[in-house]
């Protein structure tokens, strides 16, 4: 469980953004993760969108139409204002019969309403299509990741934490999903708006356009400058936050130790020191990034003032109409928005591509060696196992097993002993072909395991490990996991054979009891019994067992032992042994230390050898003293 809780470590970096998020001043100036190969990854990400070419074209077209309608309307609205103003001016000058032309204005208004509705409809269609495209693309991506994970060798999983893989398969994919959903269409509309607005402004007054465009570099310089400064603070904040999280994690996990050694005050002192640093870096980072907005809006306002003044003067000179000022102000306001938005989207896209790169890294991992084309199958497996000159090492230049030869006859018992961390699982990894051997052969009933399908090979073994893996479902489903299509009778019979039937029936829902996520509603020993039942149901030719140790109380242990003995009858078994009786009965004992098999033989032979095993045996079971005591 402790391993698991580490995986819950608070994730830093970009979290999932909710819909409608993605803008606002928060993200500005914060450092962005960058991809190593931006172009290549982006290209590859785009290939995922290929099946939706038609829809994407439709999105592009609707986005353009919707934006164009939205852009044209201020100018048309300006005409209405101009008409109003003209009528008014004529009245002002006392032109006889002068009145405002409401018929004309009415037409314009109807036209405007039509444009607005069309624009909204197209905007809706665009979002609607994009929802399907984005989510289905992501679904496809997730599927590929899952299928890929199934084809990866165990080497990959053993070298990484679950949290790391999970974060790629879930968080990173989620990040891509949000970007596809929001930022892509935002990017299209921003670009179209930008171009459209410039065109419209030019059509009104090139001079005023020039004024607005001149303010642009100002915004760029201001933003870039502030962003650069705030980056440093953000980095400091991130670092302090990381340290703070680390400290909290450590102190909480060691709560008991801290209390019993009376170190509470020291711990708080240290916390406050890091917290102060976090505060200092934090408020500066917030302040700096918060500056971008005021500066941007000030520069905007300068543009606004200039437009008002220049526009006013131009109108008095009759160079433009009064409604044009109104339209122009609206354009100028729209002008800066797509620019800031594009800058933000650029950041989002960068972090998305970095996410995509991490996902693609999984997809590009080397897979298990493909199956032999003409796979052999054992029709009636007897359980004869032979290691012929097997060499193996987890790392290329570090060999753990060299030229190992073992011969196991059907029905024999092989005990693997050695101190914790001696690498007892290595042998199991090789037997099940979770890892590939470097040289030599492993034969089962005379057939090289590499000539069999993995599926077939693994089906020959039943496995009961100390690390009991059960999943979040009913007890019945968990036992039935051993064999597809097992009947109710077979399941109950397996449970009975495993001494599990009784305790299952004492549970409130019997076989329908749902194991919760940590399977904490049954004890460790009971879990072990369920995994034994699962193995019994699978009825394998050979067995791999891990004997229970400290986590199980002695009475359950006796039950487990009985169930295991029952299971082992007549089957070739490989046992990670902790109990003396198992070791002494074994036909072959493999003694492991520091990842290597250092001794091999039966109990008597090994004792006579007076090596590591003899030493181990004597220290553990200090036989002499026992005799006196008993």
């Amino acid at each position, binding site marked *: 469980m402790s391993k698991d809780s580490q995986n819950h470590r608070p994730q830093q970096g970009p979290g999932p953004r909710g819909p409608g998020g993605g803008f606002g001043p928060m993200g500005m100036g914060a450092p962005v993760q960058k991809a190593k190969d931006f172009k290549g990854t982006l290209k590859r990400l785009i290939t995922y969108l290929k099946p939706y070419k038609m829809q994407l074209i439709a999105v592009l077209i609707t986005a353009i139409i919707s934006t164009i309608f939205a852009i044209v309307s201020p100018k048309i609205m300006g005409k209405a204002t101009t008409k109003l103003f003209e009528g008014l001016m004529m009245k002002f000058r006392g032109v006889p019969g002068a009145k405002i032309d409401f018929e004309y204005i009415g037409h314009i*208004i109807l036209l405007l309403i039509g444009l607005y509705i069309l624009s909204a409809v197209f905007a809706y269609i665009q979002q609607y299509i994009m929802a399907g495209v984005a989510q289905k693309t992501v679904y496809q991506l997730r599927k590929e990741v899952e*299928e890929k*994970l199934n084809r990866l060798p165990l080497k990959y999983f053993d070298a990484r934490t679950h949290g790391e893989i999970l974060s790629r398969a879930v968080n990173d994919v989620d990040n891509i999903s949000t970007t596809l959903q929001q930022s892509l269409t935002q990017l299209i509309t921003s670009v179209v708006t930008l171009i459209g607005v410039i065109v419209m402004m030019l059509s009104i007054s090139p001079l005023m356009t020039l004024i607005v465009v001149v303010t642009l570099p100002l915004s760029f310089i201001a933003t870039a400058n502030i962003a650069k400064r705030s980056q440093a603070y953000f980095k400091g904040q991130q670092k302090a936050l990381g340290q703070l999280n680390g400290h909290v994690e450590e102190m909480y996990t060691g709560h008991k130790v801290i209390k019993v050694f009376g170190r509470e005050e020291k711990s708080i002192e240290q916390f406050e020191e890091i917290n102060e640093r976090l505060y200092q870096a934090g408020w500066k980072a917030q302040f700096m990034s918060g500056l971008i907005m005021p500066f941007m809006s000030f520069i905007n306002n300068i543009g606004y003032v200039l437009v008002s003044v220049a526009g006013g003067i131009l109108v008095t000179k009759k160079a433009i109409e009064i409604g044009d000022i109104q339209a122009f102000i609206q354009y100028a306001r729209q002008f800066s928005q797509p620019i800031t938005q594009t800058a933000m989207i650029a950041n989002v896209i960068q972090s998305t591509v970095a996410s995509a790169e991490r996902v693609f890294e999984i997809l590009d991992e080397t897979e298990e060696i493909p199956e032999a084309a003409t796979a052999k199958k054992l029709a009636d497996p007897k359980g004869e196992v032979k290691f012929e000159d097997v060499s193996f090492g987890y790392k290329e230049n570090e060999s753990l097993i060299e030229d190992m030869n073992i011969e196991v006859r059907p029905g024999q018992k092989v005990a693997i002993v050695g101190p914790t961390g001696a690498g007892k699982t290595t042998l199991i990894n090789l037997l099940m072909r979770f890892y590939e051997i470097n040289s030599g052969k492993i034969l089962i009933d005379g057939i090289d395991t590499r000539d069999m399908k993995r599926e077939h090979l693994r089906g020959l073994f039943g496995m009961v490990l100390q690390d009991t893996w059960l999943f979040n479902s009913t007890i019945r489903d968990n036992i039935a996991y051993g064999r597809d299509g097992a009947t109710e009778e077979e399941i109950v019979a397996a449970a009975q054979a495993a001494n599990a039937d009784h305790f299952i029936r004492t549970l409130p829902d019997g076989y329908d009891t749902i194991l919760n996520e940590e399977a904490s509603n049954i004890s460790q020993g009971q879990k072990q019994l369920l995994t034994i039942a699962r193995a019994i149901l699978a009825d394998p030719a050979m067995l791999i067992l891990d004997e229970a140790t400290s986590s199980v109380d002695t009475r359950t242990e006796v039950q487990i032992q009985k169930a295991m003995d029952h299971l082992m009858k007549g089957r070739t078994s490989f046992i990670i042994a902790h109990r003396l009786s198992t070791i002494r009965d074994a036909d072959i004992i493999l003694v492991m230390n520091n990842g290597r098999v250092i001794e091999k033989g039966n109990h008597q032979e090994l004792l006579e050898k007076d090596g590591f095993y003899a030493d181990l045996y004597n220290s553990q079971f200090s036989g002499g003293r026992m005799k006196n005591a008993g």
Partner: protein
Amino acid sequence: MLKLAKFLKPFQFPVMLVLVLVLLQSLSELYLPTLMADIVDKGVVTGDTHYIWKIGGFMLIVAAGGMICSVSASFFSAKAASGFGKLLRTKIFSHVGDFSLQEFDQFGTASLITRTTNDITQIQQVLIMMLRMMVMAPMMCIGGIIMALSKDAKLSLVLAVAIPILIIIILIVQRNAIPLFKAMQVKLDNLNRVLRENLTGIRVIRSFNRIEHEKKRFDEASWDLTQTAIKVNKLMAVMMPTMMIILNLTTVAIIWFGGIRISNGHMEVGDMMAFIQYAMQIMFSFLMLSMMFVMIPRASVSAGRIIEVLDITADIKNPTTPRPPVSSNGEVEFQNVSFSYPGAEMPAISNISFKMRQGEITAIIGGTGSGKSTLINLIPRFYDAGSGKVLVDGIDVREMTQELLRKKIGFVPQQAVLFTGTISENILYGKEEASDEEVRHAAEIAQAAEFINEMPEGYNTLIAQGGTNVSGGQKQRLSIARALVRRPEIYIFDDSFSALDFKTDAKLRAALKEETQQSTVLIVAQRVSTIIDADQIIVLDNGEIAGIGKHKELMETSKVYREIVMSQLSEEEIA
């Protein structure tokens, strides 16, 4: 949420300032269209270029003033929000530090960590957003309405229609969207769970050839999530265009009705142009508010989780008038002690009475759930006994200060916890002022000296967070050395030899025996071989003492003990 507001109190002043500054900024923002209206109505109509320039200059000053306000607001809000976060973090951290194991178990370590780190960060960010934008929205809205009313009260009727419609639509969308968002989170968690199960069970899945089955399970969860995500996004696709339509139609209505009023001489053109801009500001402030609604539920979950922690107070406190111990020989006595975990039907231990003396080794053995750990946790007062008394040096542990009590104890927990820092720092944890000599001695006794010396930097080797760069057995030995350096009156070993190989275990026990002659030693163990020589063995079964005595006596008198021994040793070894 509101409960956390009291932590804002020290920042009252900056928060007030922010409010005032934001109001000023909104006013300046709103004043600009008014000035523009003046340009149109007075400057343009009369063709007075000079006036236009003058007002233009004035506008620049207003804009600059607005910027200054906004920058200062940003300064104070950053300080207030970060300060708030800092205060809250310290508060929680020291509060949790006071928790006894009971409160700790209630939340779980992982959950407490998230609450202290992520949840507070989450709230701090929302606070900044609130101070920056959420305050701005109502100010803009109120200011906009005031300006609109002052320009032309009758035309404001357009707003009186538009704003309620806008609010209703926002509410409708939110009401439909929020359950969907929640459902999406559940489905995402679901997907996460399936994948996590796939990763943890990879060996089992592959050995049972159930890859296809797992693929299907994953695919179902993934498709389920996809469906909901599509639904949410299609719903959100309605929102923005609808908002824009309302916004635009409002503008059109202002032109139409404004036109009529201008025609009747009630209003001027520039005023109408300004009016359109006020309307935009007001509507946009509502849009901004609606975005806030998305953030608030998220923050309120975090706030709720933090408050949960703050609402629980540690029930183990120091006595108001501590009694000085009568002796200091490390004698521990249990007098008829019972203890139940909260909510449990059965007591975890009941009617426990025994005595441990200086220079003696007491061992406790028993199955899982027999109450071993509970029993030893009562000595350093991680829990308080429900009934009965635990005496250390002749005094009830509840009558002395926790500091004094724990000074007497060298505790080695079941799970060896190390801290970031060097090996010698970790050992010094037991006794800050220990000399190099003492540290080395403790390491030697703990059988750690050998592997420490083999490390490239010896005692200065850095231990990574969580002790990931040392093996389980090494961790256990360092954790033993940490207790040894303290030279306490009482040693407690909670199943602390489990990760050691048999040889090291034997050597360590021999060395310990020498070292602890002047102390009281309590060992909890699973392996009979570890405790066989103890001066007194206590056999626990279902929370009760099922036998007390030496190995030989217990073999004759205690059935439970015999069973335990039998299950571990073959008959020949026992005989």
